[in-house]
């Protein structure tokens, strides 16, 4: 297990896009220490910000976190990264595979464009978790995002594929969602599913509902039973939502209208 121990709060935002177990495998500690991670003209390197200990394994632990650590695990395709603390924006951006775990909270745009692997945030996630960044076609795009705390606004904005689990979420969850599944055990904020085209949003409760979502009864669907089994296998607390009947709303009728919102009846 390789480790990077944070020396202290970084003086500027740092970009850890290229810091993955695979990338570090071929490097000595001295070489790794010279990798540029700073975002100012001062040219901060990995060695300036972290004490480095490498053993060539495919698991990396970052000891100590900061909201200034951007794009942690963004290039991850195999192996695992565990951050003991907080991270900044774009956690696991475009990640293709592997396991990424953050014991603290994450900044905005966690898991944006991630196509594979599992991203777990044990604390809270900022706005746009699983959401698209500026000019991107899609947010979460096939990976699994587990948020054990609260997610901010715009959870899964323009999400295209994959699964998001969260304890609660802010306003405009599943906005402009293209497809995929979001399950929130607690409450959603106002106006979930704004501009939602397809996809499934399941939640314990919700704030103000859009006038463009219409109730379509309490169907007993095979899909929800299969989803419950998947969640059970993952050991997710959200499975408790599936104990009784679910009321289904269809929307957003302002767009394609093939999305659905389920809440316990």
């Amino acid at each position, binding site marked *: 297990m390789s480790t990077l121990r944070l020396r202290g709060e970084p003086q500027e935002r740092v970009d850890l896009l290229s810091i993955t177990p695979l990338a570090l495998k071929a490097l000595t500690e001295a070489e790794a220490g010279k990798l540029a991670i700073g975002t100012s003209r001062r040219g901060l390197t990995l060695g300036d910000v972290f004490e480095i200990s490498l053993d060539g394994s495919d698991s990396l632990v970052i000891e100590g976190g900061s909201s200034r650590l951007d794009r942690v695990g963004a290039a991850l395709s195999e192996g695992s990264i565990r951050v003991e603390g907080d991270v900044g924006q774009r956690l696991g951006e475009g990640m293709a595979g592997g396991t990424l775990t953050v014991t603290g909270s994450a900044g905005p745009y966690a898991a944006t464009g991630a196509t594979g692997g599992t991203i777990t945030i044990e604390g809270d996630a900022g706005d746009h978790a699983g959401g698209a960044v500026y000019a991107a*076609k899609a947010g979460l795009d096939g990976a699994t995002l587990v948020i054990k705390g609260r997610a901010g606004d715009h959870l899964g904005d323009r999400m295209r594929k994959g699964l998001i689990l969260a304890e609660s979420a802010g306003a405009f969850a599943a906005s402009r969602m293209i497809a995929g599944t979001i399950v929130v055990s607690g409450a959603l904020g106002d106006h979930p599913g704004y501009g939602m085209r397809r996809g499934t949003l399941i939640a314990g409760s919700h704030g103000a509902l859009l006038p463009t979502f219409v109730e379509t009864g309490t169907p007993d669907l095979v899909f929800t039973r299969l989803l419950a089994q998947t969640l059970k296998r993952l050991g997710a607390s959200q499975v408790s939502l599936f104990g009784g009947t679910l009321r289904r709303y269809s929307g957003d009728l*302002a767009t394609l209208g093939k999305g659905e919102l389920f809440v316990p009846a």
Partner: protein
Amino acid sequence: MTAWVKGGAADVDAAVDAAADLLAAARVPVLAGLSAEVSALRAAYRLAETLGASLDPVSGPSLYAELGALSAGGAMSTTRAETIGRADLVLVVGNRPWDGSLIAEIAAVSPSRGRAAGAERALLSLGGPQNGAIRHVAYAPEAGGLAVSLGHLRAFAKGHLAGEEAYADLARRLFAAQYGVIVYDAEEVGELGVEMLQGLIRDLNESTRFFALTLADPFQGRATVQLSAWTTGQAPRVGFGRHQPEHDPWRFDSARQIAAGEADAALWLASLPAPRPAWLGSLPTIAIVGEGSPEAAGETAEIVITVGVPGESIGGALWNERRGVIAYAEPKGQPAAAEKLNAADVLARIRDRLIEKGVSC
């Protein structure tokens, strides 16, 4: 020309030297405001490149409400003159379009060109201020705001909702237009709402002609977008910390950078009036402001340099909302003295001093 360093009157050379020292010592400097003529904006982008700074115009929230939707789904837009000349139906969304003279001008005449020439012009409003002076048909907004209202309207326009509700009537009127225009302010409608509105316009264009007329922000944001695009290939919020222009609307939001303690020096450029930022005084700042403005005072910032105001005391290329282009604005009144200082010169002199000091990104 007037300048102050730490509250005391100084000559411009001394202020430029002090500004270069302040910026040279910074790790993460930001250039904010950018409410200025095009030559000054260009000088600001050059300074940022030399310094490794990021830039953020005061019009950022308004610009990105529009650009976010534009970058994702495109836009169908028209101009003020085309609207006045051709539109037989104009839908005004929200309150802000009613502030200027635009709506009165639209209401004053009927379409004179194109397929709707000679027709009556219908003026409709959605969520407007119920302005009694101009005859129009008003539709109330949803409790959830303009974005929710636009979504509801679009559901009727698509035929996904039906009934005798007001929005069903509004949707029918939109489809009956020969040349329709929706006027809105992007910041008021919000990014989600703008995307919904542009989607509605696309739907309407299946069977008729429909366009958007977006109000420009009053702080030269449109000019900044164009200048940033031709200079960096990106929208305005770019940073040069890593030797090349990186675009990141979240990371380079100057108010966020300053609130988070990331930025350690700021340059506030406002040769034209702009709202005073709440963060002035919270970090070492250089203010380059128009002469005669409320900010033209020693206590505004560590270093204050006053410059000519484009279109007032000096000439300059500015965004012309009426024409929808960047155009030269003559100085008003007597021709200005030749030695009148402008913001572009001040920024170029600061940059020259930084290069002399060996500061280069």
